[in-house]
């Protein structure tokens, strides 16, 4: 009884193991073949975080490299945030991605706040070179700082122009912020202290992408977004001026692996051409074209490059 039982089980399991092994080998072979194919054409991998501006900038990097070199460009967009992009860059999974000087300073390097843009850039350049062997290239031209945003109707009705103007209304308001803003040293705690704000209850903590929806739908009355977000204009919202200059500079810069630049100097030339080329208005317009008009980022970037003669 017992022996017949085991023999039946063996009869079933042996072919099963065989076909499983076959599958594994086939899979490994496919991986190896794929790997070889990739190495034959030199490939640059452009990464980006998971919001529109990052995708637009990464697309711009990709098109510049494609236009000024024979390299193949792979786009690995929509990576989930600063941390994942940074890890991917340092470990060589991506070759470059757009970053902001203030984010690099406080979120990645964990260094104290500084307010002078030139000093921040210089410090970040030195540290990235020494610690990660990554080159921080020249700024693209605009500053994407945290923006305190209210509904346009509220701004009109209550004559709100600066963040300081909010203080008398804050006790009746609910605020909505992203996780990043709540945790960063240049974020929530310092901000409410600097402006002496007291909101009704703890702030609602939401995913970045849901904040504007919650604001438009009056679930919250003030959110922290980014100054270049395209939806600000399309949803008739107003950015309050940072009148106490609380937020440090967040200049957009390309971060590129130095190993990649040494191997492909043409990448440096292609990306270098973008220095100082994008104003905050132009960035907001491109973001709006994608967010508000639902256009393809690649087309928007192509138009921008044409207009700029790149």
């Amino acid at each position, binding site marked *: 009884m017992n022996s017949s039982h085991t023999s039946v089980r063996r009869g079933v399991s042996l072919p099963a193991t065989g076909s499983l092994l076959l599958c594994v080998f086939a899979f490994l072979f496919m991986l190896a073949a794929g790997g070889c194919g990739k190495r034959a054409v030199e490939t640059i991998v452009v990464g980006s975080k998971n919001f529109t501006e990052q995708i637009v900038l990464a697309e711009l990097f990709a098109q510049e490299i494609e236009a000024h070199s024979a390299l193949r460009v792979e786009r690995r967009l929509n990576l989930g945030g600063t*941390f994942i992009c940074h890890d991917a860059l340092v470990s060589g999974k991506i070759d470059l991605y757009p970053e902001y000087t203030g984010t690099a300073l406080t*979120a990645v390097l964990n260094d104290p706040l500084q307010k002078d843009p030139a000093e921040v850039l210089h410090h970040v350049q030195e540290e990235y070179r020494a610690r990660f062997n990554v080159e921080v290239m020249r700024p693209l031209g605009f500053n994407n700082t945290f923006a305190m945003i209210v509904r346009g109707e509220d701004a009109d009705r209550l004559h709100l122009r600066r963040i300081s103007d909010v203080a008398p209304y804050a006790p009746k308001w609910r605020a*909505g912020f992203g*996780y990043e803003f*709540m945790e960063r040293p240049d974020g929530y705690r310092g901000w409410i202290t600097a402006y002496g704000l007291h909101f009704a209850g703890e702030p*609602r903590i939401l995913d970045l*992408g*849901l904040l504007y929806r*919650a604001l438009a739908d009056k679930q*919250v009355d003030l959110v922290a977004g980014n100054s270049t977000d395209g939806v600000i204009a399309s949803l008739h919202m107003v950015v309050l001026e940072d009148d106490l200059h609380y937020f440090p500079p967040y200049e957009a810069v390309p971060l590129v692996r130095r190993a990649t630049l040494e191997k492909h100097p043409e990448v440096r030339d292609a990306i270098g051409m973008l220095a100082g080329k994008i104003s905050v208005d132009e960035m907001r317009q491109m973001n709006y074209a994608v967010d508000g008009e639902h256009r393809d980022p690649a087309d928007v970037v192509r138009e921008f490059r044409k207009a700029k003669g790149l």
Partner: protein
Amino acid sequence: MNWYEFMLRNRSEVFERTLEHIGLVGASMAISLVIGLPLGIALVRRAKLQRWVIGAANVVQTIPSLALFGFLIPVPWIGGVGASTAIVALSLYAILPILRNTCTGIAEVDPAVIESARGMGMTPRQVLWQVQLPLAAPVLLAGIRVSTAMCIGITTIAAAIGAGGLGVFIFRGLAMVNNQVILAGAIPAACLAIAADSGLGYFQRSSARR
């Protein structure tokens, strides 16, 4: 600092978030059971309607959770910002395995057994409650088991709509570039899923033995 040191130091918040997580999973599972089981039973003999309903549940499954949250924010009563939106979305996700296993479990009961139950003079209601459901129980429980484990995992996304739970650590850790914080959310969530799965697995096996 190791992740367990971080967890020890923040144990009161880890505990609180774990409770929130269990609460969200419990509420979502309760809703999906209350809807999924009766709906599944009702659909057993309506093959065409069943295809449509399961198709719809499949489609819901493919909607990314952030998109679903986005749709739900403006909806009065069930929507908005906070736990209610999260629970609605999670229930919608959890319903499919329950619904499908209820339908297939009952459909796969041997027709000869049902025939002989009818022959013994049982009413259709008695056949359902005394024959079909007990025999389908292991498959039903398998569906609930899959659904619960999945629900514990995806409940981490509730933190994106301000509903709390262990996902708070994951989102916070991602924003802070800090693996320890991510693990403080991911590891208790994994433990919860394993505990729930083995607990329900025990029930499933004991129901199969009978």
